[in-house]
């Protein structure tokens, strides 16, 4: 079968790989019909995630058709059309039972701190991902959700990660009616966080990025007040000024370790990898939220550590909340939101690319060319 094949930083291609097999009685094999590239994949693509092995297939946002199920999978059968949450979760451990599906203890031998994620290096379990014609789906009786008849496959594939992550970013921010919410990053995750902040009753939603085309998009889609951080002198002072000198009630980091805007962090975090990615967006989030406020982090960083102003977290009495999204927990509500038209996921898709052209799709998305917001890879000609 055809699959994306990682060759090293900034280098990917497609390769003919053996078909995945059922390796556990609760596995399923899914024939992929759509598979997105995510900002999280860019951390892998840039060589920032430890234990990313050459020959690995990425891809954690996919939907498709069940091809085969293991002996213990009773709720799905061959032919079912499913969307597959990006977390691999057993559904019965200490963490899954508390709804922490992004933190399962039975899916990743390499790291206790990280759950199992499809196609996300060996640090997230060593699973080949869904940027391929077929993919192994463990614990298939827990994660996958049958796509309702009325739902567009383009909406379904964004429910595997982007929508739940944006929603959880807003949820963790503990937004109260009337709160001012500042969001760093106008990628798919920041855009969705802006949309969802309103659902929780935000009073003001402000988004920072440096890509005007993305700011233009979220200005409409959120809607949101948008600012280009390269055009303001000091993001933190700017935020104070626009909030009567106090700061936002909550701040959301939807950027993660590939953040731009600070030469020192770029040098240490991205070039030298002496910290676990550039943490400048998180730095801004901590410093632009008001005392007693909440910082919600969904932007992804590596496992070692980052230079962030933790003393300010202390002095300001901030609450930091963060996680990989617990997709399975959130799906029922989010499917309702899509049905009711409160969230329109597929509007974010700007590029549809055959799997064969994976190298160009990665470069396009990583370098933010051609107005790219969300690219979808189409294996099997979309069948």
């Amino acid at each position, binding site marked *: 079968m055809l699959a994306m094949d990682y060759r090293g930083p900034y280098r990917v*291609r497609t390769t003919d790989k053996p078909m995945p097999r059922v390796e556990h009685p609760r596995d399923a094999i899914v024939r992929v019909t759509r598979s997105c590239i995510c900002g999280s994949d860019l951390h892998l693509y840039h060589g920032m995630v430890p234990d990313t092995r050459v020959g690995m297939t990425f891809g954690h946002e996919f939907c498709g058709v069940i091809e085969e199920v293991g002996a213990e999978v009773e709720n799905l059968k061959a032919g079912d059309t499913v969307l597959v949450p990006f977390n691999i979760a057993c559904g019965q451990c200490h963490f899954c039972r508390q709804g922490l599906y992004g933190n399962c203890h039975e899916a990743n031998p390499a*790291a*206790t701190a990280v759950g199992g994620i499809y196609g996300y290096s060996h640090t997230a379990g060593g699973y080949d991902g869904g940027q391929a014609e077929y993919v192994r789906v463990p614990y298939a009786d827990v994660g996958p959700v049958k796509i309702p008849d009325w739902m567009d496959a383009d909406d379904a594939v964004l429910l595997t990660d982007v929508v739940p992550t944006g929603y959880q970013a807003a949820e963790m921010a503990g937004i109260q009616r009337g709160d001012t919410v500042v969001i760093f990053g106008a990628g798919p995750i920041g855009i969705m966080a802006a949309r969802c902040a309103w659902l929780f009753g935000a009073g003001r939603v402000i988004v920072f990025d440096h890509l005007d085309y993305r700011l233009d998009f979220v200005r409409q889609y959120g809607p949101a007040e948008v600012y280009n951080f390269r055009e303001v002198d000091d993001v933190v002072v700017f935020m104070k000024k626009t909030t009567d000198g106090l700061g936002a009630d909550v701040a959301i980091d939807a950027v993660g370790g590939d953040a731009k805007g600070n030469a020192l962090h770029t040098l240490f975090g991205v070039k030298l990898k002496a910290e676990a990615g550039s943490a400048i967006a998180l730095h801004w989030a901590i410093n632009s939220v008001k005392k007693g406020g909440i910082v919600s982090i969904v932007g992804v960083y590596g496992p070692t550590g980052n230079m962030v102003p933790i003393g300010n977290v202390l002095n300001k009495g901030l609450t930091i909340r963060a996680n990989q999204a617990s997709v399975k927990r959130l799906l029922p509500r989010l499917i309702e939101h899509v049905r009711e038209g409160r969230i329109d996921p597929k509007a974010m898709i700007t590029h549809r690319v055959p799997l064969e052209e994976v190298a160009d799709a990665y470069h396009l998305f990583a370098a933010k060319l051609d107005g790219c917001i969300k690219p979808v890879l189409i294996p099997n000609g979309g069948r």
Partner: protein
Amino acid sequence: MAVPARRPAAPNRIVPAEVLGWGVDAEPDNDPTWPMRDRAGDPGPHWPRPALQRTEVKILQSIEYARRPAVFGTAVPPRGLSGVVRRAAFRWSESSWLHWLLLMGADRVNVIEGVADDLAKARIPNIPAEMGARAEWAHNRGGLFRKIAVAGAAAAVIAAAIRRRRV
């Protein structure tokens, strides 16, 4: 609030329910992890485990685990020099910098191994294509020319330096 069920505590372990004032202000809605954690169904540290996946593949495991997780990926087992380094890395915990630095080092070695693998199969990797040169050509031609110019200038400087040393 219910007292969490527990096995007999170690002799010097404090029993929360016996501490003065324990839980008087407990209020689930004030839990800063709400609504991420729903403690109602928490089975504690001993849950009925899934069937254990079997494999012939070498799985590297964090020493922070009490036991191997039931399910895991079997993609790309460790091999070659990078594999040796990866195995060594797992002598240290996730809390150790060395653990991650060794893994990152192994990743870099692995890239060279990847090129060697290609060459061994008589395949010369088309690195510009793997880096998305076609998208760059279509959407960022100026950037492409700049990169080629920078690479060309760097090559010229190196060539000049080598020539000078020969003289």
